[in-house]
């Protein structure tokens, strides 16, 4: 066993991003043990800090559970980058950092004198990760806004919903959650390259492009076969035909309760009929074979829905899985918090927050045997670590220097 301080325990991250996609990259580094300093403004408040879910539904810069989840394990300093004092501090942070994360409109960092070329001239090994909607180059590069726009523009939204309804994949700003994993993977690879060669680099993530990479066969199918594959409800289609049937989301007992069932093999079909008490379906020629089930999948879905509606979703899932049928209760957020498998894996870590009190923080989705992901501390309050980061932890400023930087407007405090 090696001493565990995280796989990335040697890595320092300067997180200058805001809202969702960028901070979510920073938090992944924090889970793996990196030291992450999040720079914010105490004047121009990060919109995530005041976005729901909110403690008791009330506004407040330290009340957001969303911000709290995306910034676990980080330190927070508030700087005014438009002042010389703020710039002096941020350059010290650049000296300290292995990775700089930012998510401003292209050109903004350069306007502060903090563009990649300036950083590289100062420190050739630095790795800069920029996250934007459309990328650092190209005619749409200046586009501002939120991940929701990319959900529509990437074509992802058109893949979600029912054939007779609108694109319906907007409950959350999905691209904001999808792209950080790709960005973090590439950034750790870039760190590995830097370790071996000394060479840093600039990583340019366009949410548009990263989201398209999760659209499966949509583009190659259009180019090769001229097929525009769009949303198809809960069917599993390959081209225009079902891969298998039944494959769907069926009603269960109660309000807005559902069970997902996907049958691929004949023995799974037989087991499903048994659990639903419909062995008569085995003799029904519409459903007897894989091909027949696929050809009659609408009738099959309607018949199954009538049966599943009599059952509790979780109980039915357990009975189906016990006889080898792939099935899953469709869990809402309350049920996720109670799920026995997630609890078995230690997914929820009890923590405390000065405003919210006790809360369940969530762990990364994999268990590493030697360097497990951990949560080092709750998300920071606004401006919480100004003095700690500048004086004690990292930069070693004297009390006199610290007071000078505050007086010169470089360090911001939140006045409510």
């Amino acid at each position, binding site marked *: 066993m090696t001493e565990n301080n995280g*796989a*990335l325990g040697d890595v320092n991250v300067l997180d200058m991003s805001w809202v969702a996609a960028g901070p979510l990259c920073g938090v992944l580094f924090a889970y793996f043990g990196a030291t992450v300093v999040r720079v914010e403004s105490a004047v121009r408040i990060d919109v995530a800090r005041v*976005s729901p879910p909110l403690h*008791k*539904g009330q506004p407040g810069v330290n009340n957001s*559970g969303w911000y709290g989840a995306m910034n676990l394990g980080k330190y927070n300093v508030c700087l005014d980058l438009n002042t010389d004092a703020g710039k002096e501090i941020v350059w010290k942070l650049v000296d300290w950092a292995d990775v700089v994360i930012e998510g401003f409109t292209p050109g903004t960092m350069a306007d502060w004198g903090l563009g990649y070329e300036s950083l590289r001239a100062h420190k050739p090994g630095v790795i800069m990760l920029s996250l934007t909607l459309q*990328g650092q180059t190209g*005619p749409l*590069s200046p586009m501002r806004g939120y991940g929701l726009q990319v959900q*529509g*523009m990437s074509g992802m939204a058109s893949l979600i*919903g029912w054939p007779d309804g*609108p*694109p*319906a994949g*907007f409950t959350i700003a999905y691209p904001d*959650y999808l792209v950080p*994993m*790709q960005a973090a*993977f590439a950034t750790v*690879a*870039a760190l*590995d390259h830097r*370790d071996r060669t000394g060479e*840093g*680099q*600039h*990583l*340019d993530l*366009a949410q548009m492009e990263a989201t398209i*990479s999760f659209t499966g*066969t949509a*583009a*190659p*199918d*259009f*180019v*090769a076969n001229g097929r525009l594959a769009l949303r*198809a409800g809960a069917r599993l289609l390959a081209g225009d035909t079902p*891969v298998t049937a039944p*494959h769907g989301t069926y009603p269960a007992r109660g309000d807005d309760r559902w069970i*997902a069932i*996907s049958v691929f093999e004949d023995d*799974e079909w037989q087991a499903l009929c048994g659990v639903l008490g419909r062995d008569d379906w085995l003799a029904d020629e519409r459903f007897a074979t894989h091909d027949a089930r696929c050809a009659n999948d609408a009738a099959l879905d309607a018949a199954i829905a009538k049966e599943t509606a009599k059952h509790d979703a979780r109980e039915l899932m357990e009975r189906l899985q016990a006889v080898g049928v*792939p099935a*899953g*209760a469709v869990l*809402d*957020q309350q049920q*996720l918090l109670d799920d026995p*498998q*997630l609890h078995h894996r230690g997914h929820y870590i009890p923590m405390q927050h000065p405003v919210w009190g006790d809360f369940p923080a*969530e*762990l990364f*989705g*994999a268990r*590493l*045997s*030697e*360097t497990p992901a951990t949560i080092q501390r709750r998300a920071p309050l606004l401006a919480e670590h100004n003095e700690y980061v500048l004086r004690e932890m990292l930069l070693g400023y004297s009390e006199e220097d610290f007071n000078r930087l505050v007086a010169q407007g470089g360090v911001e405090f939140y006045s409510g």
Partner: protein
Amino acid sequence: MNDAPAALAPYRVLDLTTEIGQYAGRCFAEMGAEVIKVEPPAGDAVRRIGPFFHDEPGTNRSLLWFVLNASKKGVTLDIEQPAGRDVLRKLIARSNLVLESYRPGYLRGLDIDQEALRREHAKLVWVSLAGFGQDGPYRDYKWSDMVGQALGGLLYLWGELDKPPAVPRAPQGYYHASMAAALSGMVALRHARRTGHGQFADVSMQEAITFVLAGPGGTTGYWWMEGMNITRSGPGINLGHLISRTIYPCKEGYVAVSTLFGPHFPQLLDLMQRDGVAGFLAEDPKWRSATRFAALPGQWRCEQADADAAEDLFSAWLARYTRDEIMKLAGEHGLMIFPVLTVPDNLDSKQLEARGYWQKIEHPDLGDTVTYPGAPIKLSATPWRVRGPAPTLGQHNDEVFGAIGLSNDEMQSLRSAGVIS
């Protein structure tokens, strides 16, 4: 660009995964690792899933196989035969990272035990993917992409409220499982290089999904902070106490708006008034400063019913124009309205063309090219790029088995025994 260094060139990855994990191997391959996909002599199950190139089924024609396995090498091997396992052990011995997604316990039953193998090869990183992980009450549950999304909490959010949950037409659960595996494998590889110690990573698709949307996404917080579940919200975004309609049909096509009220709303209102469809929005100046969120000084915070009524008028205005006409107006008047696009729009995108996003890759056996989504992220020094087509069945048998020291005679006898194809 093609002779730029690759970040992961020093690494070898052995890919023993099914559909749930194959995108992970592709990530390593496109960052330059040598990734060897091992499949049974009859071919990986994904090869049998369509759509197929030119809609003609065939072992080497599945587009799903292509997009999950591009840039890899491919060998066939029957690991249920002892001779196949001997070859597998040799492949493992020269690998830095093994990715596998057999049902938990299956490989140990074949005496391929990651713990024993890691004792033998101290720097080896072994990543196991499964629907629910390697132990726990759901360990032996069967999974599909949809079942993973159901138990991960994502499925509850897709679709319209008055219909059953919908499933995205691209396997989002498998992508999230693959990315959790890729990131775990990557940090463990770097750790192994620095310390000499490999390790084991146990990836659960369910937990990977829950982590992505509920943890950092904050959705579970709606329950423990506000005592509510957020539900699917059709063409809108759900922020707990408020649902904002995001997608609207126009005369032809759809457009999206992040937030109807916002800096652009006065200009939008002018246009609606010009067309005589502003209705009650024109009657009270308070609408020009409306917000759905906590009101800043000078703003008026409106309730759900106000927003619903405003969205209805906006919707009626949009119905007068096509998507392209709306986008022209948006450009001229600074409106925060965006097009909802589909594949052909994006294949013609000037933005994606300027950035060289799409990659046309030569498939010699098809006598044609296949268009792949390109790199999800651009790296200035060590590019991520599609490095070649997905392997045909057994394409690299001779090369790879030769590299682990099998003679032609040995390969011939393995072939006769059906261990390789």
